[in-house]
């Protein structure tokens, strides 16, 4: 038996960038601090030595302007990867992303295209607080003309990033800080993960649990707990949030009759609302299903640990919700606290 090649999520991203930059001289990376010793959480480390400062460079603090600059370079035929250490900063670049990147191909009747990848990190970790921990993928899902992808496994990280770089359209590439440390199988060769295809991470017949970004890691832990009480959950990672693979989810729900969506973001008018509504559309007249949405508490993220812990859905809470969904709302059960090592072990300051 061949041993699997194991890499971390960060390493997988690094490898994707390195391979694509080698393959295509139009690919370049820009972002605040990407050429420093931390190298964007290690994902861009050493690239400047390899590819030189024209293709790997630090930028001024100017999110809107630098996004426009990346877009302009893309219009000229290059393929920029623009990185942001926090997704919260994307709010400064919304105009260029939504009014220019997302619209140009359509608005100009196909005359130009904007092949740009915007990487940003959902910053949950170590009391980052209200302005450094937002998962804002739902905002981008709402905008036609943008692709949104939020891979969670190292395998998908590499394959989705390569697919995003090769995509001729703007892609919002969402990385959760807490999945950067996950390890898993990553083939050495170059490969792409198909756009708009969800991944069934675990099979089960009793309830469909959809987890977005880091939440899906907690969903997998919840699944293990649920097995102990005889509930077999199917766990689905949508991977691509736009286009969203509604079929895979709806087919599962048609079988299980129950849907739990757990987001790494707020629920109100967010991805979880879309998933529920879209599955409902597919199944209406065919199958009545029970459902529930979970996500961040509907407030900005507090820094203090005890409130922060309540702020996020955790494996125990997910398992408990799935239990009630399957057994009926009058039945309650909650497993003991389930360890989330990536969260327990993470230490700041950053």
């Amino acid at each position: 038996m061949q041993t699997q090649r194991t890499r971390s999520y960060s390493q997988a991203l690094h490898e994707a960038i390195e391979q694509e930059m080698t393959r295509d001289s139009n690919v370049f990376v820009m972002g605040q601090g990407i050429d420093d010793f931390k190298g964007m959480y290690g994902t861009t480390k050493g690239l400047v030595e390899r590819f030189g400062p024209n293709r790997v460079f630090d930028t001024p603090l100017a999110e809107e302007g630098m996004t426009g600059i990346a877009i302009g370079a893309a219009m000229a035929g290059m393929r920029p990867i623009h990185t942001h250490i926090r997704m919260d900063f994307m709010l400064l670049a919304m105009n260029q992303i939504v009014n220019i990147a997302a619209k140009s191909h359509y608005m100009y009747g196909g005359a130009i295209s904007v092949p740009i990848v915007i990487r940003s990190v959902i910053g949950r970790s170590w009391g980052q607080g209200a302005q450094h921990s937002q998962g804002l993928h739902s905002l981008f899902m709402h905008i036609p003309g943008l692709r949104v992808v939020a891979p969670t496994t190292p395998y998908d990280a590499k394959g989705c990033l390569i697919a995003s770089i090769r995509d001729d359209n703007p892609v919002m590439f969402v990385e959760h800080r807490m999945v950067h440390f996950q390890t898993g199988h990553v083939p050495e060769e170059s490969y792409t993960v198909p756009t708009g295809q969800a991944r069934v991470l675990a099979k089960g017949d009793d309830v469909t649990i959809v987890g977005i970004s880091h939440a899906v890691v907690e969903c997998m832990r919840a699944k293990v707990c649920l097995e102990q009480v005889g509930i077999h959950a199917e766990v689905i990672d949508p991977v691509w949030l736009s286009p969203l693979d509604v079929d895979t989810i709806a087919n599962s729900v048609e079988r299980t009759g129950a849907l739990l969506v757990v987001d790494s973001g707020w629920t109100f008018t967010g991805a979880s609302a879309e998933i529920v509504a879209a599955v409902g559309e597919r199944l209406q007249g065919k199958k009545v299903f029970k459902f529930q949405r979970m996500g961040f508490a509907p407030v900005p993220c507090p820094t203090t640990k005890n409130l922060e812990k309540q702020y996020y859905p955790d494996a125990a809470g997910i398992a408990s919700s799935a239990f009630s969904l399957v057994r009926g709302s009058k039945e309650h059960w909650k497993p003991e606290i389930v360890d989330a090592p990536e969260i327990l072990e993470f230490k700041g300051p950053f």
Partner: protein
Amino acid sequence: MIDRLFRSLFLIRRVEEEIARVYPSDKIMSPVHLSIGQEAISVGVCATLRPEDVVFGTYRCHALYLAKGGNLKAMIAELYGKFAGCAKGKAGSMHLIDTSAGVMGASAVVSSTIPTSVGYAFAEKTRGKDTVVACFFGDGATEEGVFHEALNFASLKKLPVVFICENNYYAIHSTESARRGGPEITAMAQAHGIPAIKLEGMNIEEIIQSVGKAVEEIRNGGGPRFFEIMCYRWKEHVGPNDDFGVGYRKKEEAEPWLANDQVQVVGNKLSEEDRRRIEIAVEAEIAEAFAFAESAELPPDSELLSDIFRTH
């Protein structure tokens, strides 16, 4: 040279006059921002550029599009919302594009093409091309933060961009005194390390000379240059009409500008005969373009959902 300049100036003026004439018929069902009175800037700057050079503009982009050689038929068809338009009828007057002529588009969001033009210049420079990018915007655009962000990066990387600020004193109906606390717009460019020149008096020859010198320096790796060119918008901010009666400005203010009409100034340098010849040819071209637009097809319904993503 003079005949080419006149041809371009006259073409733009007459196209826009035709647009204004047609507009009340509701054949053009979309906002139009006319450049009448400001044409000499686009024509002068584009006269210093090569065909492979590119320009980025604003919603007020008719003059720039035509001065850079954008296809006239495709433009008028676009205004008429026809499938043969330069953007299949999806863009309208505010977003003219003709990549084959180096017209890289225009945006209805003030100042949003400033960074994209800088990014384009970055790509060209990185790949060793000697393209010059001309970036056009209004005085109002200089108040947006992104203007500064883009200028800083252009300066930092010594990019081949010539920034052209068409200062017509107004942003819609707002005067500069309601909007800006600083002294000259050029001072802001200089504060980013970009050599900047202010041109007053609206003289196309001066524009060509001054910008031409800068473009040459830029092409030789000298980094970005900035021009603030004073001008005056003769028509209302958006739409085909005069608006001296509505209150925010007086006709007297316009008078010196009207008297210094560069279309006439340049035209007068030609012989009567040469001028007539050009005018006749231009009129024919315009008539043809409008006729083409009139009779062209609307986009098929299926176009509504096409072009959202580019797929190979």
